[in-house]
């Protein structure tokens, strides 16, 4: 039988259509994915993402361990609660997973993907063997993402007064502990919002409070179109172990400095960097289709510099046209996509289409 989050009954009661997601029964939508998408862009919605994996890293070597394990540098986390996006690379520079790491009092907290849980934990524990650290998975934690322009106000209205004050003072990419609840200004939608990690025993009751406060449930379907509009990667689709951060729009999450930090994958990545400088490394771009139709993952992209491929594609409810992430030859300026036998022109730009409810894509 599939695994279920602590909110399974609440999803059923909210008329969720449940689907299998990597061995979990998860809500894909609660009636209409498009409506849920718009609720997050215009008001506020809640996602149950408790299927994701929380891993705490504790012990005296926590920092130097993560400086080895991750391509971004946790030394940038200079205050408690600060968050950092990073890749975890293999020795060839391919992405084992992408994750968020927070600085906590006892060390660090990472949130990694659900579909990669087992291989991640195996890799993390393997590397951890040579360090004085404890790797502690936290399966008893629920994770809710509450996003949208009104999210912080609506959540703060139902938190205890002193917790609400703490949450209100958070800047983006910062979190705070409220007892055993960790609440952070992070997310995967391109909107303002919070992620809450807390003991799952509280989850059903808290969910009902959110519903009573007018916060709408949002399924994994809208989560995918929201993150695509925001130009954020989905692991396994936009990158995997055969793709380096340089070809997945993740170079912003590679800390090259200090050069003395020998993170896993560094030497392979350095070679790829040279290839990139020579103009021979594919890059990730954003595509917009002006014609009718929907771009889909796997479709071939034909450019003036050779072929590429769409890694994620869907309909953008905000732009009311189809958008995609694609990996294409460096330096290309003209792109077409073959859709049902027709060669359609697509606009080419940086990955990222919508931020804070507004179009940001530029071709």
């Amino acid at each position, binding site marked *: 039988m599939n695994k279920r989050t602590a909110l399974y009954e609440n999803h059923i009661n909210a008329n969720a259509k449940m689907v299998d997601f990597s061995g979990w029964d998860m809500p*894909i*939508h609660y009636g*209409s*994915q*498009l409506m849920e998408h718009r609720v997050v862009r215009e008001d506020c919605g809640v996602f149950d993402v408790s299927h994701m994996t929380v891993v705490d890293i504790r012990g005296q070597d926590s920092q130097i361990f993560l400086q080895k394990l991750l391509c971004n540098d946790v030394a940038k986390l200079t205050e408690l609660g600060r968050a950092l996006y990073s890749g975890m690379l293999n020795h060839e520079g391919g992405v084992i997973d992408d994750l968020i790491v927070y600085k906590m009092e006892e060390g660090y907290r990472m949130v990694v993907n659900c579909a990669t849980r087992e291989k991640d934990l195996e890799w993390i524990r393997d590397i951890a063997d040579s360090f004085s650290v404890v790797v502690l998975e936290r399966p008893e934690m629920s994770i809710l993402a509450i996003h949208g322009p009104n999210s912080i106000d609506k959540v703060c209205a139902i938190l205890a007064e002193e917790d609400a004050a703490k949450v209100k003072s958070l800047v983006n990419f910062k979190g705070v502990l409220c007892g055993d609840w960790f609440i952070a200004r992070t997310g995967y939608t391109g909107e303002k919002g919070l992620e809450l990690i807390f003991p799952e025993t509280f989850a059903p009751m808290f969910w009902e409070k959110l519903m009573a406060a007018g916060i709408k449930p949002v399924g994994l*379907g809208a989560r995918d*179109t929201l993150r695509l509009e925001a130009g954020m990667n989905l692991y396994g689709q936009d990158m995997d172990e055969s793709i380096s951060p340089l070809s997945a729009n993740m170079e912003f999450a590679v800390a090259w400095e200090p050069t003395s930090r020998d993170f896993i994958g560094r030497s392979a990545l350095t070679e790829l960097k040279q290839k990139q400088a020579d103009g021979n490394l594919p890059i990730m771009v954003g595509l917009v289709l002006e014609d*009718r*139709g*929907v771009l*889909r993952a796997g479709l071939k992209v034909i450019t003036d510099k050779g072929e590429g491929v769409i890694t994620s594609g*869907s*309909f953008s*409810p905000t732009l009311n046209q189809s958008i995609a992430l694609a990996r294409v030859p460096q330096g290309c300026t003209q792109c077409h996509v073959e859709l*049902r036998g027709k060669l359609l022109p697509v606009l080419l730009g940086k990955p990222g289409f919508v931020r804070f409810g507004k179009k940001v894509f530029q071709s």
Partner: protein
Amino acid sequence: MSKIDQYKFTRSHEWVRVNEDNTATIGISDFAQSALGDIVFAELPEVGSEVKANESVAIVESVKAASDIYSPLDGEVLEINSVLGDAPETLNESPYEDGWLFKIAINDVAQLEELLNFETYQNLYK
């Protein structure tokens, strides 16, 4: 409102409603729209074109996937549902009425015999 027993169905989830003037209106079933999820585009055949039974003649794209629509009958396309251009969600909201796809002049009424009634169709997907 038409009654559901006036509709005939294909195994590929299209429906046919025969009108009084020997034309047929074609759409997709409630089961189909629900399985597809939010529909964002419908690419319909050209008015005046000839369609053949079991031939792919239209495409319905939802947020999730693109689906071919097969003509249940041979005939000439007389009209397409222009509402779907600006409001493709009509397919989700009213699959049996306002969300119809196209109308044809029926060539061969015998082909209707091969289609399923609602009860048989529904039992296939229980």
